[in-house]
C-alpha cells in the first residue's frame, strides 16, 4: 500500500512526544508568532530550535525526502514571484525579502510536519476540547472530534493521490503537460474514492460505538513539561526583547 511519510503521526517516546499537547500547541503558536515578527535572527533561531527538536524526536529528514521536494519547489515559486514583483524597490531588497518569504514558508511547513509527527489525533482532540469547553454555546465535543478526525483523514487522502497517480502512470496517461488538466484528472477519482472511504470510516466509527464526548487521551499538567516548553521558547523571547530595545 502507498505510504506517505509526511503529516503522519510517528510513534515514539521522545520528550517531545510525551510533552503535554497543550504545550505543543503553545510552542507552535509561539514559533509562528516569532516568524511573523519578521526579523532574520528569529528565523535563524526558529531554524536552530526546530533542528534540535526534530533530532530529539528522532525524525529523519530522508523519510520525508520526496514530499520535501514538493514544498521546496513551492518555496522557490514564492521566492521568485516575490523577487520579481518587488524588483523596482531595488535588487538587494527584493532578493532579501524573497529569501525570507521562502525561508518562512519552509519553516511553517516544518512546524506542521513536526507537530503532526509527535501529536496523536486523540491528543489534539483533548486539547481542542479543553480550549473550547469553557466557552458557552460551543459544541466542544463535536468540534474537537472533527479536528482529530481530520488528522486521521490526511493520510488516507495522500495515499489516495499516490495510488491514483501510480495507476495513471502504469496506464501511460501521466504525460499530460497541462497542470490544470492533470490536477483535475487526479481530483475527480480522488474525491469519489475519498467519499466512499469517508462513508466506510463513518460506519466503522459507529460500529465501534464512537462517542464524541469520550476523550481518548487525558491531559495532566507536569512541571517538567512547563520547563521544557520554556526552554524552547526562551531564546525567542530574549531575541524579541533584544530586538525591541536595542
Amino acid at each position, binding site marked *: *500500500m502507498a*505510504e506517505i511519510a509526511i503529516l*503522519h*503521526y*510517528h*510513534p515514539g517516546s521522545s520528550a517531545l512526544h510525551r510533552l503535554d499537547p497543550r504545550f505543543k500547541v503553545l510552542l507552535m503558536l509561539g514559533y509562528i508568532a516569532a516568524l511573523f515578527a519578521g526579523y532574520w535572527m528569529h528565523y535563524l533561531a526558529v531554524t536552530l530550535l526546530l533542528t534540535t527538536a526534530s533530532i530529539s524526536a528522532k525524525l529523519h529528514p530522508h523519510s520525508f525526502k520526496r514530499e520535501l521536494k514538493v514544498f521546496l519547489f513551492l518555496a522557490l515559486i514564492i521566492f521568485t514571484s516575490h523577487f520579481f514583483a518587488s524588483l523596482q524597490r531595488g535588487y538587494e531588497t527584493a532578493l532579501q525579502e524573497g529569501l525570507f518569504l521562502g525561508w518562512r514558508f519552509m519553516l511553517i511547513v516544518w512546524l506542521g510536519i513536526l507537530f503532526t509527527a509527535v501529536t*496523536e*489525533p*486523540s491528543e489534539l482532540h483533548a486539547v481542542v476540547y479543553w480550549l473550547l469547553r469553557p466557552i458557552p454555546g460551543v459544541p466542544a465535543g463535536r468540534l474537537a472530534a472533527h479536528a482529530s478526525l481530520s488528522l*486521521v483523514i490526511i*493520510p*488516507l487522502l495522500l*495515499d489516495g493521490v499516490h495510488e491514483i497517480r501510480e495507476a495513471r502512470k502504469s496506464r501511460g496517461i501521466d504525460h499530460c503537460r497541462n497542470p490544470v488538466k492533470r490536477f483535475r484528472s487526479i481530483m475527480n477519482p480522488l474525491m469519489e474514492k475519498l467519499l466512499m*472511504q469517508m462513508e*466506510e*470510516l463513518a*460506519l*466503522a*466509527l*459507529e*460500529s*465501534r*460505538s*464512537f*462517542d464524541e464526548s*469520550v476523550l*481518548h487521551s487525558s491531559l495532566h499538567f507536569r512541571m517538567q513539561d512547563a520547563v521544557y516548553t520554556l526552554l524552547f521558547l526562551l531564546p525567542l523571547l530574549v531575541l524579541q526583547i533584544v530586538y525591541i530595545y536595542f
Partner: protein
Amino acid sequence: MSDNLIIEVHNLTHSFLDGTTALREINLTINKGEFILCAGRNGSGKTVFSRHLNALYQPSSGWVKIDGRTTAKDPFYARRTVGLVFQDADSQIVGQTVRQDIAFGPQNLRLSKDVVEKRVESALQTLDLYNLADHRPHQLSGGEKRRLAIASVIAMEPAVVVFDEPFSNLDYPGVQSVLRHIVALHQSGHTVLLVTHDIEKAAAHADRMVIFDNGKIAVDTTPQSALPKVEFFGIRPPRCSGADVKELTWLK
C-alpha cells in the same frame, strides 16, 4: 423464544435511497455458539445483511432482534453484542498505533482505564500482535491488518463476531493465521458468522451454511448438504467435488 437464541431476523427488507433493494424478506435465526458460513455471489446482499446485525443499517421493513431486543429500539445493545470485522481493513483503522486502535472501542464504552488496558493486553495476546503493539497500523501487512481489525472488535467483548470476507487479498499464511484465530474464537464460546465465497478455505469448521442469492436466502442447511448446490449460486465448488466437508479447510 428459546434461551439459546441470540439473533432473530424477521422479514428483513432493505432498500437504498437509489431504489436498489438489497435484501428481500430475509428470515433467519441464529443460536448461541453456532458457526455459520455465509456465501453467495457478489452483490447478493451479504455485506448489507451483516451491517444489519449490529445496527449500522436499519430495516426498511421487518426487524432484527439481538438477544430479544430490536436493533431499531436498542442499536447500542446490538453494537455491543455483535462485533463486525469489515471487509476493507484500511477504512476500519482509526488509531495511530496498533495499541490505540484496539483501545478505541473499549474507551468509547466508557470503561475504566484499568479495564481498557486489560482488554487491550488480552486482545494483543489473543491475536499475536504483541510485537507490533506500537507500530503504525497502515504499515502492517495485509494479514496483520486483518488481525488488528479482529483484535479491535474482540476488545469490545461481543458475544457474536461477524467477519465480512476476511480472507480477501491475503496470501496462504495470512489466510491460515486469520482462520486459526476465527476457529479459536468460536472454540472460546463466540457465535461466529463468516461471510466468504471461498468455502474451500473454511467450510469444515462451520455447523451451518447459508447461501444468499439476489437479496434472499436460497439455502440454509449443513455444509455437507449445501455443497452440491453451491455452483448454481455462483460459488466456486471445492476443487475435488464430492469431497468430504471435513477436508475443506486451509488449516492442516
